[in-house]
């Protein structure tokens, strides 16, 4: 096959998938950019071009800033914890211990549950007064606490749910990478007299960097694009304590029907994700060793 023929075949093979994606993902995303510079059509008034008015409105919107801060805390609270847990669990399950299959199954379970089901499960678990968590903390003599209803614990409660769900997913990828690792490396290190901690820090971790990069990008994205748990568990309350950016967009767009302002908010979210992704690649590319 000549080179140009291969290109032609390649493009033809890609075409159906590209069309589907362009129609149902890329186009709607670009349309959002367009909407963000126009006013929301209301009744007889058609949408007009308003320049950056929507973005100006955003600067003076305290709830926007609060949702942004909340989201940053949410990211800081969930990403390192779920990745560390995933790595620990993967290393643990990778070793030869009794009941390994059962452990793996246990870790996978939260991952394969739909987020909406997870949110429901934890809603029951957190129920004040007679939820399981309350009963157990009560049995240890701790005071009753409304985890989702109180301003200072609601966001943390959501973080726990997210880590619970995500750590298992990331573990799958770490586990795959660990199983690819040659046992000769560990043997060589053992002969040289390296401690297990040293080996983990200087050999295992660097070799896992590509996986870490992949997992990290996913974790960051998920911290900003998950919304199901907020919808089910708190609806942004109490007093906007769990108002995440995406949920705020949902509220503006679907409770207050201000689609133009929602579009502007969306663009901010996209910009934020883009910057974070670029930073990660720029920063981590130097630390990643592919093979």
């Amino acid at each position, binding site marked *: 096959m000549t080179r140009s023929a291969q290109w032609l075949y390649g493009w033809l*093979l890609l075409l159906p998938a590209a069309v589907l994606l362009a129609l149902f993902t890329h186009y709607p995303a670009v349309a959002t950019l367009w909407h963000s510079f126009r006013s929301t059509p209301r009744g007889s008034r058609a949408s007009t071009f308003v320049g950056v008015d929507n973005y100006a409105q955003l600067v003076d919107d305290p709830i926007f800033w609060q949702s942004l801060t909340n989201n940053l805390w949410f990211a800081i609270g969930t990403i390192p914890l779920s990745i560390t847990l995933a790595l620990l669990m993967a290393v643990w399950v990778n070793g030869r211990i009794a009941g390994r299959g059962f452990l793996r199954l246990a870790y996978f379970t939260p991952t394969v549950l739909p987020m909406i089901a997870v949110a429901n499960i934890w809603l029951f678990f957190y129920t004040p007064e007679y939820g399981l968590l309350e009963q157990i903390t009560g049995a240890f003599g701790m005071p009753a606490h409304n985890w989702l209803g109180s301003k200072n614990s609601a966001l943390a409660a959501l973080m726990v749910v997210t880590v619970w769900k995500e750590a298992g997913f990331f573990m799958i990828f770490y586990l795959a990478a660990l199983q690819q690792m040659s046992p000769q490396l560990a043997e060589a290190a053992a002969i040289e007299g390296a401690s297990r901690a040293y080996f983990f820090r200087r050999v295992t971790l660097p070799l896992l960097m590509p996986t870490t990069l992949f997992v990290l990008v996913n974790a960051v994205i998920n911290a900003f694009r998950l919304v199901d748990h907020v919808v089910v568990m708190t609806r942004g309350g109490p007093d906007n304590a769990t108002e995440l950016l995406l949920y705020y967009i949902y509220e503006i767009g679907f409770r207050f029907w201000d689609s133009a302002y929602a579009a502007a908010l969306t663009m901010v979210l996209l910009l934020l994700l883009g910057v974070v992704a670029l930073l990660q690649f720029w920063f981590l590319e130097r630390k990643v060793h592919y093979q």
Partner: protein
Amino acid sequence: MTALSLPALPPPLRTVLRAIVLALFAFAIFGPLLNLLLWAFAERWYFPNKLPLEFGLTFWYRVFQPRGNALASLGTSVWIAVLTVALSLAVAVPAGYALGRLKLPWRSAILLLFLLPQAVPNLPVYVNIAQVFYQIGLNGTILGVVLVHASHGLVLAVWIASAAFASVDVSLEEASRNLGASPWTCFRTVTLPLAAPGLIASAIFVFLESLDEFTGTYFVGVPDVTTLPLLMFNASMGGNYQIASITALLLLIPSIGFMLVVERFLKADVLAMVGR
């Protein structure tokens, strides 16, 4: 190779510590699920009772009665998931092959375009799709929901398919071509079977994603298409905790079943290629 072996501590203490960590893990993972089980079999339960006053199957009968909408939703969910898998794989297998195998110019740029949707929050996208679908009459139809699910599942499917094809040894293909196999025969009898575990895994992922999908169905399918997650959401919002719990358990069954299958099909070498 356990990160939790603590060499500095005497053995009995180590065992105790390990048991505590294990118990905490077990509670963290299964505690919430236990609570769900309690709700699923509770006939009556309200504050201040620590446990349900009565256990029973009344709500199970209600969910499974012929006129109940749970079974209909389950049927709708599965049907949508099957169609979504068919559509996603039909376009993802060729695309994955092209990306995993052929030396295309701007391959990484194309790959990025294919990965981008994974980074875009779905919600605003669904909102725009819902508007377009409303104009062309696709809102509230199975086809509309399938298109939304497929365009979402496609990203994952292309990803895994391209990794699966990339992990197939080229020399095997070359050998079959040397022995006179046509390109199509070679693909059908060598490449495809070797990539099959990865492709099956991606089909399973897409199936589960579709089965579990909530946001997109909520925007595009309501009120005519009611999938299981939507049913659960409605039950939960209506304070009908028993129905919500039973629906959640129903959703758990295919997830766990498929998870067991995935472990068999998704080989480590394919997973390790993802994201490369």
